[in-house]
């Protein structure tokens, strides 16, 4: 299994943009000259967790630097420091050779740094044009100028998005369109250093090509680009050099020509990927969850799936493809979901989480702060949150029984018993997520566990534990459904993989036949040219 997993993860990914070796050599020469942006010994901690440890980087003009790393490696923290959202504990940033203190996003802009963030920074009630020029230093007091509108329209046209109406409010755009608007904002900033943090998470390959063309044009003008991604095809397509980060540390910075893909992957993962994902379970039971004709207006169209007991089904899709919304709808959190859902052969009416919970559907969200954890309450309270009725008499709680239940659950998921009394917000992200899992354990054996990006932002060690937990739940007879945009995880964990593009099911794969290449192809462009 290990070899198969490695093979699936490390297989060749096609390059899409042709490269020019002479240009690469010229770029290296330029780097030896002055660097546009330098980072020296940057460190940042949040409490005792060190998010960044002693990072040093240089970027010269006309260079594209890729930063690769897994979830939780520290890439986003680095970007947030460069753009003024966080302030570093130690270290300096030099822009154009001079030390720069960047304490607000506006100051970052003044220094010539612009960003497309992973979490889109668009204001839903404002129009497209207003969002493109929002916060830009170049906008005068009376801001409705025809030349600005023209520039915005031209930039959208450059990205192939001129079908987007400049006056439309952002709330009416699809998520792919929003990402293009955010990139258009970046391009109008005339920045010296452009930072793109996972900018293609929702885009088709055609759109991605156009963005690369625009970036390469800027590169030839002498601007620098920092490109953060964990999609290796993109790294090889556009970057000159790549820095690899792992657990807050910079593992290496190296030029790309000559670096093989396998070597890069190994640098990123730091260990063979086989250790992460446990063996699959043998037994498969009866269908626990059958979905037919699930439609969420405006998001998902006519989705269907069957999940058996003891099986992990993964729904792969980019952000906005509807994967996360399907999970939420099955958990009862979407009020206008429509479709036929059978749980253990009984019909489930959608729209009420309480009803779903009574039928044995449990929900774990990757958005812990918003949907998962009661931060000010203790770990114990969090663990037993859903089983108060089981241990109460006439409405009165049986404290001893609850405490015992809590201790059992804590040991089951690997949370130290001594932490039961501390507040949930004091736990690390990985432990908080284990808490969410713990809440769902020890239910009736025909339960269904729905998960929405459960390992988001969690370090490698905790993730491996969570995958083990998932497998042990399978052994107990649960059926698990997981929506994720982390393709490595989907391919490593899923017994069945469904791919989703723009709200429609593309294909279904068994474990033996799924590869990352096929999944990426499915989720980034429509089959047979249909939208």
């Amino acid at each position, binding site marked *: 299994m290990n070899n198969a997993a490695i093979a699936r993860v490390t297989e060749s990914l096609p390059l899409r943009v042709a490269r020019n070796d002479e240009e690469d050599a010229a770029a290296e020469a330029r780097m030896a000259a002055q660097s546009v942006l330098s980072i020296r010994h940057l460190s940042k901690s949040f409490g005792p967790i060190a998010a960044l440890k002693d990072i040093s980087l240089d970027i010269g003009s006309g260079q594209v630097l890729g930063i690769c790393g897994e979830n939780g490696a520290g890439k986003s923290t680095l970007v947030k420091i460069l*753009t003024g*959202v966080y302030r570093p504990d130690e270290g300096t940033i030099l822009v154009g050779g001079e030390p720069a203190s960047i304490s*607000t*996003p*506006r100051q970052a*802009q003044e220094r010539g740094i612009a*960003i497309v*963030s992973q979490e*889109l*920074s*668009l*204001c*839903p*009630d*404002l129009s497209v044009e*207003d*969002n493109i020029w*929002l*916060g*830009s*230093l170049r*906008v*005068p*007091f*009376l*801001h*409705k100028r025809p030349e600005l509108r023209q520039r915005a329209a031209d930039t959208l046209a450059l990205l192939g998005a001129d079908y987007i109406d400049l006056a439309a409010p952002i*709330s*009416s*755009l*699809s*998520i*792919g369109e*929003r990402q293009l608007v955010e990139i258009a*904002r970046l391009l109008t900033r005339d920045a010296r250093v452009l930072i793109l943090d996972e900018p293609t998470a929702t885009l088709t390959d055609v759109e991605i090509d156009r963005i690369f063309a625009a970036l390469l044009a800027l590169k030839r003008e002498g601007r620098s680009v920092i490109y953060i991604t964990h999609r290796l095809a993109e790294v090889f397509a556009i970057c000159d050099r790549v820095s690899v980060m792992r657990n807050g540390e910079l593992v290496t910075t190296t030029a790309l020509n000559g670096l093989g893909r396998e070597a890069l992957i190994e640098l990123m993962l730091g260990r063979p990927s086989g250790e992460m994902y446990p063996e699959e379970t043998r037994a498969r039971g009866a269908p626990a969850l059958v979905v037919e004709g699930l*439609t*969420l*207006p*405006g*998001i998902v*169209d006519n989705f269907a799936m069957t999940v058996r007991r003891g099986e992990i089904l993964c729904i792969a899709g980019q952000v*906005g*493809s*509807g994967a*996360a*919304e399907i999970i*939420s709808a099955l958990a009862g959190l979407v*009020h*206008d979901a*429509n479709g036929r859902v059978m749980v253990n052969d009984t019909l489930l009416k959608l*729209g009420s989480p309480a009803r779903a919970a009574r039928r044995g559907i449990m929900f774990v969200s990757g*958005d812990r702060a*918003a*949907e998962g954890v009661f931060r000010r309450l203790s770990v114990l309270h969090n663990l037993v949150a859903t089983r108060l009725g089981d241990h109460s008499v006439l409405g009165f709680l049986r404290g001893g029984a609850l405490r015992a239940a809590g201790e059992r659950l804590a040991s089951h998921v690997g949370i130290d018993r001594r932490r039961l009394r501390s507040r949930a917000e004091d736990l690390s992200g990985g432990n908080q997520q284990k808490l969410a899992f713990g809440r769902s354990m020890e239910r009736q054996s025909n339960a269904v566990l729905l998960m929405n990006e459960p390992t988001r932002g969690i370090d490698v060690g905790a993730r491996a534990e969570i995958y083990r937990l998932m497998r042990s739940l399978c052994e107990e007879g649960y059926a698990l459904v997981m929506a994720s945009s982390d393709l490595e995880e989907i391919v490593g964990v899923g017994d069945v993989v469904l791919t989703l593009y*723009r*709200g*429609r099911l593309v294909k279904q794969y068994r474990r033996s036949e799924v590869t990352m290449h096929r999944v990426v192809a499915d989720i980034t462009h429509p089959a047979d040219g249909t939208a």
Partner: protein
Amino acid sequence: MLSVLTNRSVRPYLLLVAITVVLWILDGGRGVFFTTSTAFSVLQQFATIGLIALGLGLSMIIREIDLSVAGMMSLSGCIAVLTGAGQPGLGVALAVVFGMVWGLFQGAIMVWLRLGSIGVTLGGLLTLGGLAYVVTGNLSISYPRMDVALAVNHPVLEIFSLRSLVALIAFLAAAFFMARTRVGRDVYATGSDHRAAMVAGVRTSAIVPAVFACSGMLAALAGSLLSYSLAAASGVALTDVLVPAIAAAIIGGVSLMGGRGTPIGIVGGVLVLCLLSSGLNAIGTPPAVHDVVTGGVLFLVAIADAIDIDRRLFAVQRYWREMFLRRDDHIGLTKPRPPGSVYHKEAVRRSNATPLIK
């Protein structure tokens, strides 16, 4: 055409037309209600409530709320009356400056200490109201300049007065500012998504205190002019000011979720409430009915602007269809939208936690 009807800022004017029609029917063509003196009294009320509603509306646009405007109104009346005996303009100016300073103070606390506005402005309401209470000793302080009182209320062009003109000018200035300037756009951005606006480069830490300074100034202006016009400063009850002002702002298109609403819309909302109240007066209802009506309007408006109203309405519609129409499809129940257009995280963000508390 349809888009004009659903425009939030047009709705209050439609409501205004509806109320006018009802009043006209009740009037029966006798010409008792629709006189210039009625218009004058409506606009006089507009002068008081309107300025408060504008300030409150601005604070709601940035997804906060300024509860202290009621206290500011009382206290600024006291300041104006006590200092404006010689120079009435000085009294108003001092009150307005105080309003600005207090607003900046509240906004700065919110930004610096990362506090929600409800707590801070609640404290502000109690403090300012308490100060006014202390200064007036629960009586009224009279203002000796009767000539100023008359001048402030003197009819201009038959239906306006100095006070209502000041209010109209304030609204026009606000409307221009919000629609045409970069700062106005930044205000909408801050309310629409504070974090996104900040990351984009908007100076949100300056916008918040500035908006609260505006609401403080507007409340001070309203309070000082009102006390001149009554030739006395006295305390102001919560229900007399906050209830109609919030109702007016929400009717006018402002939402507690922030990011929307225009000054012109707020004008419409205020006029709706003033017309309603004048209508009630004309019928001869006791003042307690006024409380009931404005309270009822605010109650309905609060439900209309509720977070889960769409969800619950949808559930009711679906229940109705299943029970009585025996249909279990959803055709026609929801608007068609392009695929991928609902941002899941936005739904979570908007539905999580009471707005106005961080």
